[in-house]
């Protein structure tokens, strides 16, 4: 094994298409997430423009429904999920002291599958109309009878493909965190972000199969004429709601938990104080995840499940307030007695706390079924979930991006612009969504494309729209900041915030391909901080310097994803009537689907038949780089 295999090292575009390096895949996730976040943001601004005044006719009713559907779907599945995965990819292996993830190949496959699913979904805009039944796609509105374009097909197939990618990513991170931790890093010494990534991945594992089934059933209804949700033939629309929310509620915790993790990293660093109540934080995270699977029907109080179900789900939902409260107070007491520094990252993290608490208290109010009969499907709900998802998750993501940007790119984002971003975004956010609580209480339902005057909605909607544009400016500033920073020279210190506590700050920014020359020995929670306090400059290595085995880059994940993409398109149009006879031939006979699947399974076969021996970075090379550094 000592002898090194020669390996093709790609340059430029090919390098990015074939990379299996978690740090590069993290950047790819960030780019893809940024793209979809931008698309979702533009959709949001169009929605707000349409609602700026009563009886507005900027967009048609149909277009508006497409906009809200795509805004929700894009933001949830394609906008914030990949940014979460970007941070997880960029940080988790470093935090646990690993050279890579457990399955570099799967990591790449997960990304490309996700990306092609997202592209497929967004192609709907130019291929005959976007989905229009809401991001929840309640049946029968989303069945063939009432949604006659291919929009919902793009939704079902695109999300299945993107979901597959997410699931693969989730399993990869679970395995990575379980088996790849550095010596000495027990579960109870893992950084909080790693913990939340672990729990989030577990939730992905258990929640995504449910939505996959739901989407398969809806696809079968729409394409194969099955009757799962066809009322006339015995199907049940309520069943769709259950399946959707059995996935859907865990999904929102999948989103928020990583934000909790980011906050738990950023606040201690900038307060120069260890996380208060680490064990109770871990416990609270697990409890939230567990309860998250038992509250789904609180989205269905008005469906009419009956008093027993409504009472049960009311109580289980309220219980979630307890572990969440634990977290809030732990963060506050982390800062208590510390030395809080107001960097851009920390501003977002601190801003997260009151904002998220506001989303939390409206959540408890919604948890009460009798009150929800009034609140449900109004702008009160819209305000609530934007407070937790934007005020919670997106604040958390911005905190994380500012915090780890130097580790990912070797450059610190401009702090002054960063602070402007925060204030614009935060003020815009509250302007947009705070007033929506009152709109909801006054009786404005969600998902209406316009509203009659004289209901007292006009001014508040105008304020909301103005706020949305302020948020938009904040996001543009962030974009500008990243571009500006990219023009600056690389080369920040290993620990640019000077108070880094975890392993990622012990290595170069950005880290070498192999992350750790020698795997570090972990002696306690906040491993790096512990060494610092003991007066050490570096971690104690847990192994002698030796050749490092690296996985080979490969194009197969990309090809496999292209195959799935083709099969998905083929599936969608299999019942379409084409004027072109060649198109009818290949689509109506499932030839396209078969070609797509052959590409995918063929690549899988290739992967199985030809072992990847990888390649080695030799000791001499490592030492050379050591000298250079």
């Amino acid at each position, binding site marked *: *094994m000592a002898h090194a295999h020669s390996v093709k090292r790609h340059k430029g575009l090919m390098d990015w298409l074939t990379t299996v390096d978690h740090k590069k895949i993290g950047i790819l996730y960030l780019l893809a997430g940024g793209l979809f976040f931008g698309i979702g943001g533009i959709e949001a601004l169009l929605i707000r423009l349409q609602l700026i005044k009563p009886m507005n006719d900027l967009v048609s009713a149909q277009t508006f429904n497409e906009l809200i559907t795509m805004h929700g779907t894009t933001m949830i599945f394609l906008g914030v999920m990949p940014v979460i995965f970007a941070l997880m990819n960029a940080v988790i292996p470093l935090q646990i002291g690993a050279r890579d993830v457990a399955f570099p190949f799967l990591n790449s496959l997960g990304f490309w599958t996700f990306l092609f699913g997202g592209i497929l979904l967004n192609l709907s805009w130019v291929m005959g109309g976007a989905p229009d039944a809401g991001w929840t796609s309640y049946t029968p509105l989303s069945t063939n009878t009432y949604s006659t374009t291919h929009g919902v097909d793009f939704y079902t197939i695109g999300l299945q493909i993107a979901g597959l990618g997410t699931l693969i990513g989730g399993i990869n991170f679970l*395995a990575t965190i379980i088996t790849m931790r550095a010596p000495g890093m027990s579960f109870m010494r893992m950084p909080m972000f790693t913990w939340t990534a672990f729990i989030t991945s577990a939730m992905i594992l258990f929640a995504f199969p449910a939505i996959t*089934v739901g989407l398969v059933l809806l696809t079968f209804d729409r394409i*194969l*004429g099955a009757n799962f949700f066809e009322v006339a033939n015995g199907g049940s629309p309520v069943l769709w709601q*259950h*399946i959707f929310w059995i996935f859907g509620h865990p999904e929102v915790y999948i989103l928020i938990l990583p934000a909790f993790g980011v906050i738990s990293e950023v606040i201690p660093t900038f307060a120069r104080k260890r996380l208060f109540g680490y064990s109770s934080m871990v416990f609270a995270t697990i409890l939230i995840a567990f309860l998250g699977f038992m509250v789904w029907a609180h989205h269905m109080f008005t469906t009419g499940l009956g008093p027993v179900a409504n009472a049960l789900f009311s109580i289980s939902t309220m219980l979630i307030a307890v572990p969440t409260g634990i977290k809030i107070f732990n963060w506050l007491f982390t800062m208590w007695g510390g030395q809080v520094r107001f960097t851009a990252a920390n501003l977002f993290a601190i801003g997260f706390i009151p904002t998220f608490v506001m989303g939390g208290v409206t959540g408890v109010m919604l948890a009460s079924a009798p009150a929800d009969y009034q609140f449900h499907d109004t702008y009160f709900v819209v305000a609530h979930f934007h407070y937790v998802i934007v005020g919670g998750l997106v604040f958390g993501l911005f905190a994380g991006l500012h915090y780890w940007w130097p580790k990912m790119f070797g450059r610190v984002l401009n702090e002054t612009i960063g602070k402007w971003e925060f204030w614009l975004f935060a003020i815009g956010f509250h302007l947009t969504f705070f007033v929506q609580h009152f709109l909801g209480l006054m009786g404005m339902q969600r998902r209406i494309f316009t509203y009659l005057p004289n209901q007292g909605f006009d001014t508040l909607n105008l304020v909301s729209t103005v706020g949305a544009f302020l948020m938009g400016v904040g996001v543009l500033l962030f974009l500008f900041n990243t571009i500006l920073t990219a023009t600056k020279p690389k080369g920040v210190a290993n620990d640019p915030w000077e108070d880094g506590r975890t392993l990622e700050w012990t290595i170069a920014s950005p880290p070498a391909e192999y992350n750790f020359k020698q795997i570090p020995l972990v002696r306690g929670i906040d491993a790096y901080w512990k060494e610092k306090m003991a007066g050490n400059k570096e971690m104690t290595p847990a192994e002698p310097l030796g050749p490092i085995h690296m996985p080979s880059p490969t194009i197969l994940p990309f090809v496999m994803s292209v195959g799935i993409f083709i099969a998905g398109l083929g599936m969608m149009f299999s019942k379409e009537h084409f004027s072109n006879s060649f198109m009818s031939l290949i689509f109506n006979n499932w030839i396209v689907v078969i070609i797509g699947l052959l590409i995918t399974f063929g690549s899988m076969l290739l992967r199985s*038949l030809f072992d990847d021996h990888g390649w080695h970075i030799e000791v001499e090379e490592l030492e050379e780089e050591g000298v250079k550094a």
Partner: protein
Amino acid sequence: MTSHAETVNGELPHEPEKATLEGRNKILSFWLFLGGEAVLFGTLFATFLALRNQTNDGPTANELFQLPMTAAATLILLVSSLTSVFAIQAMHKHKVAALRVWLMVTVVLGLGFLGLEIYEFAEYVTAEKFGMTTSAFSSAFYTLVGFHGAHVAFGVLWISVLIGQLYKKGLTVVTAPKVYVSAMYWHFIDVVWVFIFTVVYLLGKVG
């Protein structure tokens, strides 16, 4: 991490599937995957249970199902599960030839099961006028049992590819985890079938 030392000395360890970190990772994450599969099939079962009485004037479970055929399918799959246990035992004893034979028996039994299922479905569609579009019950039935059937088909293909690799590459620390994982998959298929014959067929007969 002792994995490297074990592969270097050239001799295959007792449990070759767990000799390398890659192998152990593979097995662990396959378990995780099976946890997700449990939810997948759980949701399909839930769908079936919710729609089991929605027959829309089409055939009902009681009219449709023939116990002898289900019993035969059950026996075939159960035996194939046992043969894949034998395959793993052969692997642990480094008897590559026996391993290949047991895997082949498993594949043949899997094909037998698939044949029975296809025959059953064809019978329902032609003789009983019970197709995917007949009723909500029929959709749920074909989707649940069909998903399981697709899993069996994939398993058959997968194990066949592995048999080929065992001929070409022999039993190594790279091929062993693959064989082990495929056996886990095969057992899981059998576990799902236990629930299918109970919930779909037997409880369908009970009504």
